[in-house]
């Protein structure tokens, strides 16, 4: 569903991506762990098409239409209502918001309230709804659990699980090994723009992966 080959990208003297190649198949959730500055966000942005990699190529089946992005920016217009936001973003993908989406995220009561009137937890859930409004087949998640409250975090985990169960792919980057391991089918460690480990999770628990991560990155 997603393939990267020989991705290399530098910002001046800093190598953000250094010959990164991998592929993600349907049903797989790849968790990429790495410290800040390892190039994780750059990798996601190249996959999403937001950055043109200086060398190498990244191909996502279905192009931008198939990609859903969940990051720390809610990408919602504070002055518009939940319904208006969802309708706007859906229109850019030439679809209508799916009728069950709002229910799945427990937002029925707030659909006609402006986003600026919502609590932080609710905004987070609306942001997730926004990312899923066009039914993407590939999810790209950039530190998605940062600052999420319990309800939102559980909703997100559930959704990622459902996404994989439906035979779709996800790439999740985070520096928090504990949170990401449970959802992953495959695990990668990233340091200074390179993958220093890339393997199926194969039943390893969070503690074990964390241990290996500390050894690899130290």
């Amino acid at each position: 569903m997603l393939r990267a080959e020989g991705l290399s990208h530098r910002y001046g003297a800093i190598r953000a991506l250094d010959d990164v190649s991998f592929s993600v198949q349907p049903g797989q959730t790849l968790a990429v762990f790495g410290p800040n500055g390892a190039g994780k966000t750059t990798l996601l942005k190249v996959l999403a098409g937001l950055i043109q990699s200086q060398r190498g190529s990244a191909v996502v089946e279905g192009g931008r239409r198939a990609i859903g992005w969940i990051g720390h920016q809610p990408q919602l217009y504070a002055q518009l209502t939940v319904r208006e936001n969802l309708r706007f973003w859906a229109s850019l993908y030439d679809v209508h918001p799916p009728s069950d989406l709002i229910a799945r995220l427990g937002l029925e009561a707030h659909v006609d309230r402006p986003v600026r009137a919502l609590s932080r937890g609710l905004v987070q859930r609306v942001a997730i709804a926004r990312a899923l409004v066009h039914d993407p087949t590939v999810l790209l998640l950039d530190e998605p659990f940062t600052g999420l409250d319990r309800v939102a975090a559980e909703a997100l985990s559930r959704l990622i699980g459902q996404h994989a169960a439906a035979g779709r792919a996800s790439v999740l980057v985070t520096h928090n090994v504990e949170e990401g391991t449970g959802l992953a089918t495959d695990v990668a460690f990233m340091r200074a723009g390179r993958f220093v480990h890339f393997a199926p999770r194969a039943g390893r628990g969070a503690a074990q992966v964390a241990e290996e991560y500390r050894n690899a990155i130290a």
Partner: protein
Amino acid sequence: MRSPDLLRHAWAVASKDLLVELRSRTAILSVATFVVLVLMVFNFGRDPTAVSNVDLAPSILWVTFTFAAILALNRAFQIELENQALDGLLLAPIDRGSIYLGKLIANLIFVATIEVIGLPLIALFFNVRVLLAPLVLVIALATVGFVAVGTLFSAMTVRTRFAELLLPVLLLPFMILPLRWAALATGLLLAGRPLSEVHGWLNMLAVYDVVFVVLAILLFPATVNE
């Protein structure tokens, strides 16, 4: 780039901008107040015996609209910055040109609103007959020119430190020529000259508009793509 998609997405972006603007309510009110204040300054700052209204009116008109437009232009990309939504627009499978066109349309409607408010006020305060069809055409052409360039530049300046100062500095040199032509045409029309004397300036304005709108559409992706 398929035209119907381009326009449809552009209109989606534009209507979203206008809706956000309507809900904010502050921008249009501040600019309207600004227009009235500037006109008052012009009134108290001049010597009515020295220069006649008809001679002064083009300058008043264009200075007022220019400064009001610059105030308005910053908001277009400010909306995306405040809501951190620009990445979302770039992720969507739409042509970058749609984003620019959408912003351009929203800006034009905004500035047109300012002009619709300002023109009758100028007619009222300075007792000049400005509500003439050819004059409206001149104003429309000049407006398209500088709003097209202004929308492009605001995409670049919005993230810089002195954005409100940098945008006018970059934009004014590109406004001088269309303003000069428009002011000359305005002067002729207010003095009651026939349309035939004015059409040379109209042609220049039209050519300028076409060149810079096309250029802006071509260059806009460079301001948002990395």
